[in-house]
């Protein structure tokens, strides 16, 4: 593979896309399904309760249960992104401004910033996650680097995708990439 190298200053938008991609990458599918399942169960219980139990108190309780079912069932679609957004905004206020130079070659990834430099063989990465805005290089245990896709040309993106697919195999994940 022809080496690909990018240099960038992390902007607020980059920071936001990075943390959002990270929260998506860390999201466990079973947790989302569990929440939706619980929401559905509460909804069914609420509807059944409203149909079978007479009285204002019972109807109110069932209505509250149905409201709870919507909140629980749609937590990961509504409240969770909002909470993540709030957290990222707070983090950005204290995040130091950093410039990164990240290079991809046949055998390794190089990361260079003001206080950190690394030359990591692909085998040292615990995973690579790509969405429509960023590529996350996960070293593991919360240690990761990212490349905003705005810094790559279309041709570089394709070259990099093919290379990462080849070297990372099942440790390479894509989501929402066109």
């Amino acid at each position, binding site marked *: 593979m022809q080496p690909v190298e990018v240099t960038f200053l992390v902007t607020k938008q980059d920071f936001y896309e990075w943390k959002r991609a990270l929260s998506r990458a860390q999201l466990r599918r079973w947790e989302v399904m569990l929440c939706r399942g619980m929401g559905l169960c509460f909804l069914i219980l609420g509807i059944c309760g409203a149909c079978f139990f007479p009285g204002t108190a019972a109807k109110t309780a069932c209505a509250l249960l149905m409201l709870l079912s919507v909140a629980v069932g749609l937590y990961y679609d509504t409240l969770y992104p909002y909470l993540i957004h709030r957290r990222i905004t707070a983090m950005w206020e204290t995040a*130091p401004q950093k410039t990164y130079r990240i290079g991809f070659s046949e055998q390794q990834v190089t990361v260079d*910033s*003001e*206080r*950190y*430099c*690394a*030359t*990591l*063989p692909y*085998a*040292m990465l*615990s995973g690579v996650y790509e969405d429509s805005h960023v590529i996350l290089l996960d*070293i*593991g*245990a*919360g*240690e990761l680097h990212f490349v905003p896709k705005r810094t790559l040309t279309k041709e570089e993106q394709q070259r990099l995708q093919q290379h990462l697919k080849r070297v990372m195999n099942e440790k390479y994940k894509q989501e929402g990439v066109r």
Partner: protein
Amino acid sequence: MGTSQQALLEIRATVQRRDFEMGYYLARKLVSPLHLPRVQAGLCLTGAALCATMIPTCSLYLGSVWAPVCGIGFFVFLAGLFGWLVPSMVKSRGGWMYQTNRTLSLPYTMRVFEDRFEWENEYERICAHWTDVDRCYENRQYYVLRGDLEKPLLVIPKKAMDAPAMETLSRFLKKTLAVRYRGG
């Protein structure tokens, strides 16, 4: 990256899984006194004791002691949870983190300077100023640094150091990091 200066100390160490687990646990429990398992368990046992004092009153006015007994059971369960189960869960999370990051098990060299430290292993090099360190924790076995360091935690096992080096580093960290230093 770094500027030349005489290093105060040079430490060569390798962090084992057990070291990282204990370092991770240390960093969690020394955040505040309320994070200490014995304090959490103690608060729960105080709750249990308060429930126990309600037994005569409940027996006299309600004719039953089930409610305070259930309360005691609940608080004792919580004490066990915070005092024993949560610490072991935190340690296993540390172990899992160590397992997922292959760079954590590599031997490293750390050079300590007055204004910064340099940390390097086979693949990575960090040069951070002491102002980048948010917290430093120390107990009888480890030093743990966390902050804006590109690594989740830097664990320094004391077994990799001799006694004068430990004394120098402890004194230096206490003096340099002041309120950001926590001894266990």
